[in-house]
């Protein structure tokens, strides 16, 4: 009732608001609670929407390393292990590369609903790395499709191109032209004309060649090729076909499989009718691979299955396909972790001790990527462009996965592909295949 006489209440409130606004704009810097992700210290953390808190040693970091992996979905077990390995490696180096004190944030480029990498997430992550000047290097990405989005953004980062080292991208076009790439690659990913991306795994040209050689060694003559229609799957299928044809292997067909289909019976029937003695599965196990293997085994029981590293971890393939996966050959770049020597062996033992688990081969590559990136930071200091160009002078002796260099394209010179065969629900190591460089390039 008292209010009745105060017609100007609204104006009073407005007045208060304006005053308060003025107060806030003067005193705006006394609270800084908004954006950060729980880190502390001088560096600004990457947004908490996709990145975890800053991990650091005893000193406050001056620079950040981010890892960019799909932490949700089918690859979750592997990618969280890789993030653990990255942190473990940094801790081993006392969070220092040369004089630079480092912090680490593990970022996620996947959405739970998609269960794998998400294009919006990838580009928004890349933009936040590029915009945050504390970020000196990125370990990632895991998926080649995501790398295609992130590399150009990191390449145009303010303050010089931002270094990226991938432990898992195998699509060739990211670093070089030639077999299995598209016109204009890789230059389209480097709009500034300077390179900023390297990887420590062999690209699919080698894996395709190794698979073709494996097929020849197994005496398989007629292949029916399937692919899942994604960057990786389609790419490796095309490469396999190219190299297999060179070795005189007959390719009967190259078809997509629809990951959403409920059954592949008619496809299997098609394979059976084509008279193929083997099927190459260019794709990844999480695209309904289990059902695909089951149906092919039921419809074309005599066809030998061969798959690239998209079917690793082998446990996932076995879980999806059950007994039908038996006898399938699966290749993977690198050597099995129990055959690593020197620094690699130390890493495997140390990792096992801390996390109680044998690291996956890709985990070893993640650790290797950290080593390469820290090496470059040591040379380049806190300057983004300098670190990026130092990547291409990498010369690692007795690294985690062996001794190797990074060539001017950003590819590793180290090349061995391991062959596993599924036996009784487990992957048994068969041998390693090392394709000749001349054969790979002739493709």
């Amino acid at each position, binding site marked *: 009732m008292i*209010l*009745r006489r105060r*017609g*100007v*209440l*609204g*104006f009073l*409130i*407005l007045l*208060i*608001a304006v005053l*308060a*606004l003025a*107060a*806030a*704009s003067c*005193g*705006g*810097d*006394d*609270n*800084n*609670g*908004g*954006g950060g992700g729980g880190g502390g210290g001088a560096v600004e953390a990457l*947004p*908490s*929407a996709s990145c975890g808190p800053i991990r650091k040693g005893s000193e406050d970091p001056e620079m950040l390393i981010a890892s960019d992996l799909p932490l*949700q979905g089918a690859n979750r077990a592997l990618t969280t292990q890789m993030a653990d390995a990255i942190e473990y490696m940094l801790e081993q180096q006392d969070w220092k590369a040369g004089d630079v004190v480092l912090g680490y944030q593990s970022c996620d480029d996947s*959405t*739970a*609903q*998609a269960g794998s990498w998400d*294009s*919006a997430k990838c*580009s*928004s992550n890349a*933009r*936040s790395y*590029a*915009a945050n000047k504390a970020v000196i290097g990125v370990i990632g990405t895991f998926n080649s*499709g995501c790398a*295609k*989005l992130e590399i*150009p*953004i990191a390449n*145009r980062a*303010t303050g010089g191109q931002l270094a990226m080292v991938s432990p898992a991208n195998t699509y060739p076009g990211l670093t070089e032209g030639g077999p299995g790439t*598209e*016109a*204009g690659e890789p230059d*389209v*990913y480097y*709009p500034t*004309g300077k390179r900023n991306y390297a990887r420590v795994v062999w690209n699919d040209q080698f894996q395709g060649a190794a698979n073709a050689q494996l097929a020849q060694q197994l005496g398989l003559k007629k292949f029916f090729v399937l692919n*899942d*229609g*994604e*960057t990786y799957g*389609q790419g490796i299928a095309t490469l396999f076909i190219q190299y297999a044809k060179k070795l005189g292997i007959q390719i009967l067909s190259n078809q997509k499989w629809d990951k959403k289909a409920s059954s592949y019976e008619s496809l299997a029937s098609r394979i059976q009718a084509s008279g193929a003695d083997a099927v190459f599965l260019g794709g990844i196990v999480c695209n309904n691979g289990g059902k695909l293997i089951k149906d092919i085994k039921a419809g074309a029981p005599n066809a030998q299955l061969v798959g690239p590293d998209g079917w690793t971890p082998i446990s996932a393939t076995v879980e999806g396909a059950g007994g039908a996966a038996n006898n399938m050959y699966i290749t993977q770049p690198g050597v099995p972790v129990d055959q690593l020597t020197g620094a690699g062996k130390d890493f495997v033992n140390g990792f096992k001790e801390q996390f109680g688990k044998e690291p996956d081969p890709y985990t070893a590559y993640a650790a290797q990527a950290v080593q390469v990136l820290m090496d470059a930071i040591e040379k380049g200091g806190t300057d983004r462009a300098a670190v990026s160009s130092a990547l291409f002078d990498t010369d690692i002796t007795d690294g985690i996965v062996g001794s190797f260099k990074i060539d001017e394209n950003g590819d590793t010179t180290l090349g061995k592909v391991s062959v596993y065969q599924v036996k009784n629900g487990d992957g048994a190591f068969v041998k390693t295949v090392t394709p000749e460089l001349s054969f790979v390039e002739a493709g």
Partner: protein
Amino acid sequence: MQIPGLPESRRAEFESELRRRGIRAGIAGVAWIVLVTVTTGYTNSLVVSTAILAALYVVPWDMLRHGKWVVPTAAILLAVLYPYYRENLYEVPIFGPFPSVDTAVTMTIYIMMAIGLNIVVGYAGLLDLGYVAFYAMGAYTAAWFASPHFAESVGAVHVGSVGVSPEAQGFHISIWLVLIVAGLLTGLVGILIGLPTLRLRGDYLAIVTLGFGEIMPQIARNGDNIFGTGFNLTNGAQGINPIDPPGFGNTISNWTGLPADYLTFNASFLGKEIGGVEVFYWTALALLLFTVFCSVRLRDSRLGRAWIAIREDETAAAAMGVPLMRTKTWAYAAGAFFGGIAGAYYASFKSGTFPDDFFFNISVFILCMVILGGMGNIWGVILGGGFLAYLNQEGLGNIGAQLNDNFGPGGSIVNIWDTPIDVPLYQFGIFGLILVLTMLFRPEGLIPSARRKAEFHEGVQEDYLYDQRGAPE
């Protein structure tokens, strides 16, 4: 004291309204401040922002001369200045910090799409379950005309290209032109889809649009070799990237100071360092304003009234001489136009487009924005769109983290579940729940349009709004 802009005759009304709202806002505001202070801590921004919102709400601005402009102007001002004060804002209980500017860009783009869909669903009353097709069309248009995709077939075609070397192969058209082209092309697609299907009854139309929404991504996915001709339209599942960033190019940039290339842009403006994201955000806001303006003008135009007439009673509208097909097709075209622009801008923002971005769930997601906000009411749609896009981008992740911290393994309040619950995984379940609850308990949405509310609650229950029963052409 004379209140400026208020006729003395309405003073009593004004004051009573002021009092009514003042009490409400006072109680709510104080409760809010106390709640936030107790849960996440006090900052000055809490009082300031609450006071501003309260001031905007409490005064019945509409009664004042020129008063109707106050709230929109304030809203625009607050939105534009967002990057400046975001870092000083408080943390909202449960939801966590306010969205990052990056998220705000995505939110703005989704709001644009929601406004586009609102023209079809809200104004014209045509249920479109395949809106994602328009978004896809816009995104692919951007991909065709501003990327190296057609490098082999066209050579280097540059029109105001930004961020690529002048020799770069393929179409590199300035994004501003591409946006217009995308809008027009998508509008055309809307007309083409509409012509054969708009004669169908409401739920059949819904299912047909759903069909188109399912076919489009498949065309995108398989379009790297259309019918074996070797013509690569969409580059298949690999998607098309990189797409050129927006920008004004060096010439205009030198004249005006506008950013030459959004991705590499970096400058200091009004005491804050401005990067690419902020510029992306302001551009998105400008596009949104354009969309809102067009949408409001369309609604109030002759065409808009025809849409509403059709929505309310098709037969009566036809009898009054409203050309059904043409009116409906225009609704489709207009909705598609804005969807196309939003899609193209989003593709440029993401710098790539992939067929997996366009699945059915996105259509439902945008529909959910329209329904939650209030069909037909543009302010409601903005609210619904912004809120849901925020939830999708950041909110659910934050909520999940808070829930797990408090109730998960080793929870700080009480340990209820032992394995962390991945809340964002269930985003579409949550959106589904929002759809059901809204429809059951508040079918007119959060901010209803008065007309729509009436339709849901009285008048037209027994005859069929979305039913065309042989109405003559």
